[in-house]
């Protein structure tokens, strides 16, 4: 009795001291992370409360940058635009991704190869993809208008019209990121039990009913993960929009991220841009938290 408890104490002491040792494993990473990640966060906060332009003097102005932002119509109009783009770039991949996952969950020849091809867009270089789409969207000689004309749809202006530029850019994002939703849902489908389906077949359920009442509720947690990742990534989308439309025509596709880039690196308004970063980061964090809470709720209601 005595011996075991002493041994236990010794073991616990050992484990405790070992925890200290593990800190040495983390230390180098912590140093680098502070330099390239935490320092920029803090420095951004500092810049956002200063009148800071490259080439002129730096002046502390408190929250003035934020006050200006609240009345800046060009900035304010980027928020609904970003949300519009995000909604399209989340909902469509979720619907199409679930369908694709159902397809890849079946057995058919060359499945592995075809899945590899299907997944390729999400690992391709966004700039390269954006350039190819730019050429495909060309209103006069682009291949997409030709394909549409084959089925009798008139020529579209794609990214050259203020009305269609956001859905068109979202289309590229959907093309590139639906595979991620597919992979997450496919993982979910693989983990499903087979018994409910067997009894549903005996009860005479059709394919749609089986999907609606068995598959869908069971893959919902996986879908929530996909929605969270997709929302954060769509809000941050930059390469595709910047390469294809540069925020145009006019400011029709200027999302928060594009506005931020132009303010910082075209107009060199560092203080103003840093205030945008703080607001943008808050929006992303808030949405991420809302979605995480929604996911927890979902878990408890089941």
């Amino acid at each position, binding site marked *: 009795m005595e011996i075991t408890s002493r041994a236990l104490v010794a073991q616990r002491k050992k484990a405790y001291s070992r925890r200290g*040792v*593990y*800190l040495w*494993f*983390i230390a*180098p*990473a912590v140093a680098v*992370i502070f330099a*390239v*990640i935490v320092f*920029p*966060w803090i*420095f*951004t906060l500092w*810049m956002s409360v200063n009148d800071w332009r490259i080439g002129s003097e730096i002046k502390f102005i408190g929250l003035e940058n934020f006050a200006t932002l609240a009345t800046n119509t060009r900035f304010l109009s980027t928020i609904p635009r970003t949300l519009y783009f995000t909604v399209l770039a989340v909902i469509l991949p979720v619907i199409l991704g679930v*369908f*694709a996952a159902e397809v890849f969950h079946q057995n*058919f020849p060359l499945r592995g190869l075809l899945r*590899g*091809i*299907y*997944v*390729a867009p999400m*690992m*391709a*270089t*966004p*700039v*390269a*993809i954006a*350039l*190819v789409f*730019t*050429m495909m969207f060309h209103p006069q*000689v682009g*291949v997409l208008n030709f394909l549409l004309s084959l089925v009798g749809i008139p020529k579209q202006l794609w990214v050259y019209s203020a009305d269609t530029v956001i859905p068109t850019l979202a289309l590229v994002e959907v*093309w590139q990121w639906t595979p*991620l939703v597919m*992979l*997450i849902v496919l*993982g979910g489908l693989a983990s499903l039990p087979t018994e409910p389906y067997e009894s549903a077949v005996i009860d005479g359920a059709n394919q749609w009913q089986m999907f609606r009442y068995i598959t869908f509720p069971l893959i919902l947690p996986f879908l929530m*993960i996909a929605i969270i990742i997709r929302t954060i990534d769509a*809000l*941050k989308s*930059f*390469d595709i929009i*910047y390469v294809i439309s540069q925020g145009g025509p006019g400011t029709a596709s200027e999302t928060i*991220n594009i506005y931020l*880039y132009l303010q*910082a*690196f075209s107009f060199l308004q560092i203080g103003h*841009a*840093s205030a945008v*970063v703080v607001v*943008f*980061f808050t929006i*992303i*964090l808030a949405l*991420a938290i809302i979605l*995480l809470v929604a996911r927890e709720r979902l878990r408890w209601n089941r």
Partner: protein
Amino acid sequence: MESVNPVRKFEIPYRLNRFFGRVALFGAVIAVVSPAIFVFFWMLSLSLKNEIDNIAYPPVFIPAPPTLDNYIKIFSESNYVLYAYNSVIVSGMATLIALLVGVPAGYGIAKGKAQGLGMLIMVARITPGLSYLIPLFMLFRALQISGTLLALTISHLVITIPMVVWVMISFFEDMHPELEEAALTDGCNVWQAFYRVAMPIARPGIAVAAILAFIQSWNNFLFGVVIAGRTTRTLPVAVFNAMTFEQLSWGPVAAAALVVTLPSLLLTIFVQRDIVTGLAAGSVKG
């Protein structure tokens, strides 16, 4: 007349149903895969056609005859060899440094249960890249290293380190601890248990982390477009510039786009199954 076998009567429509099921499945497979195939096909097609065919309407689908002129042009007239070298150095170094500090960190976080640091990495991954870029840009100007490969490599650590740490945390958490425990009882110290026991077992995880970090860094455009100078451009930046300056020469742009994205696509083959771990691990666990 012989009686009709009720089972057979049931079977025929069933088989028909299965046949239509097969047809519908093949239709669905084609519908799902064709957008990806078409865009890559079109990229290849543009890169193998001359300029007249590229802006012809109706479009020319199959290059006849295919020509490599566009590829010869980008490598002889532009500095693509240099840009490729820049990309390899920046992504290679950023990945290497991320592995050196990230693999032990992943191990330390998984074993030492340092949840706080895990949380920090998670927030780092949802922060927009531009948030890092402004302060780093100012820092590099102050240090007078703006426009160098060193500055680019440092900025790419923002991408590679969180990726490596994430993949390694989930890998080490899933690993059975018995072997290391045995090593520790036999008198190994913690470092030896990590270096001689855990690391060799984790080799496939390290490979996945390295490839995913490299691809993300290779594909990155934003950091390069702001920080790189004229001779330190990475491939994505070079291709973007080709588009703005040669507005309508589609062939060379498509050829360059294909050259840029090919390494990412080839590397993807090795990590196909682990893509979700790499890109989603954080959120799945959080």
